[in-house]
């Protein structure tokens, strides 16, 4: 890895590069919507296959079953299965084109880099943002755009929860820390209503959403990103109230 192209610490990143990263983040955000579209698209051939298979079962139960009917249904099942496979192949190609580029990164710099984006979103919803960044954290080997996407996802969830509170006075904080020797944590903490236990249990399930327009993919994708980095995402209630979403990333022991 060339040290000059990936300087440790991302401060002073040229505007064009930052812009590219933000584009990447927003592209990742649309993956959630895309996944819902793919689910709908896959549902079509599956519905057709199920219908043909169930019709075949009914036809076979009849003494006068016509083999040409059965052959036609089986040919259709084959065609619809091929269609489903084609949808999955296209999706896989798309995933491959979004290859990840990792560099050793200062997590605090990564957070500061996106703070403007977070603040403009928060301001729009009357939410106050603060940073609680711990100095001297070890660098983490990450794809900056992907990790920013996860944090942005946490932030958006918090802002939406805070904006739904009529009282106002919503506050959220992005906190970095080192809970144990081999890991770095970045957490998004708010003073909103927090989560009910039944929501907590299903939080990271794909397609689970408490929002009417939600695709239920945001946290599921965040989970996938964290895991491909050897880390994890999680939720804990904040004290005395509110929510705390966090991501743990592996880090070399501090030098």
């Amino acid at each position, binding site marked *: 890895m060339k040290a000059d192209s990936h300087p440790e610490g991302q401060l002073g990143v040229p505007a064009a590069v930052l812009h590219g990263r933000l584009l990447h983040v927003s592209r990742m955000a649309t993956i959630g919507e895309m996944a819902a579209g793919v689910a709908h698209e896959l549902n079509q051939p599956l519905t057709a296959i199920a219908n*043909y298979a169930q*019709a075949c079962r009914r036809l076979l139960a009849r003494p006068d079953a016509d083999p040409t009917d059965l052959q036609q249904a089986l040919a*259709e099942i084959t065609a619809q299965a091929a269609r489903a496979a084609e949808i999955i192949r296209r999706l896989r190609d798309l995933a491959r084109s979004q290859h990840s580029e990792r560099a050793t990164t200062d997590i605090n710099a990564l957070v500061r880099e996106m703070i403007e984006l977070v603040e403009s979103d928060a301001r729009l919803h009357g939410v106050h943002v603060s940073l609680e960044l711990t100095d001297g954290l070890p660098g983490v080997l990450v794809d900056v755009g992907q990790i920013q996407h996860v944090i942005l996802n946490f932030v958006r969830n918090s802002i939406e929860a805070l904006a739904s509170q009529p009282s106002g006075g919503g506050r959220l904080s992005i906190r970095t820390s080192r809970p144990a020797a081999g890991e770095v944590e970045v957490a998004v903490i708010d003073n909103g209503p927090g989560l009910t236990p039944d929501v907590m249990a299903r939080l990271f399930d794909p*397609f689970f959403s408490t929002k009417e327009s939600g695709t239920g993919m945001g946290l599921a994708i965040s989970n996938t990103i964290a895991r491909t980095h050897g880390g994890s995402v999680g939720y804990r209630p904040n004290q005395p109230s509110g929510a705390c979403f966090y991501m743990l990333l592996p880090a070399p022991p501090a030098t």
Partner: protein
Amino acid sequence: MQDQPPTIYVVDDDEGVRNSVRFLLKSVGLTARTFASAREFLDGYQPRQPGCVVLDVRMPGMSGLELQEQLNLRGAVIPVIFITGHGDIPMAVDAMQHGAFDFLQKPFRDQDLIDRIQRALDRDARNRAALAQHDRIRGRFDSLTPREREVLTLMTRGKPNKVMAAELGVSQRTVEIHRARVMEKTGAASLAQLVRMVLDLESQDAAP
């Protein structure tokens, strides 16, 4: 009543899905006609043909909900079963509020679809029987002479024969004859039933 076999109109922009539904229905002896769009269906649909509609809620062009509205505007009585995708519950609720007969989520169990279609066909047959009954009754009332109609109006207002005779300027005997003709022509067995028929016809006229 069921002189014509019912037709199930399958409206879905996905060719694979609509053909598979037609095939499934054929396997249980039901006749289906398929349409690729709401517009195509509105052009090809025969209001006099008994049946029901199986409609995909999400379609390009006119959506399933808009089609339901068009049918409502045309005063169509045909029951509509909506097919929704995974997680389209708010849309399904919307469809039910717009007068849909039932809804089903994709992918569905064949028996669930067939049961719903059977119920929809039963409902359609009942609707059509009720409408035919109304038409018959209306035909009978239309056969009344102007004078008999006057007598009918007074009868439903509960006027005794003596009062009617005075109001119409005829003999009580003449009123009795008209009265008997009204009962005979409308086929009402009692004054109470006659009043109910008149109210039914009036409420039908008031409907859009």
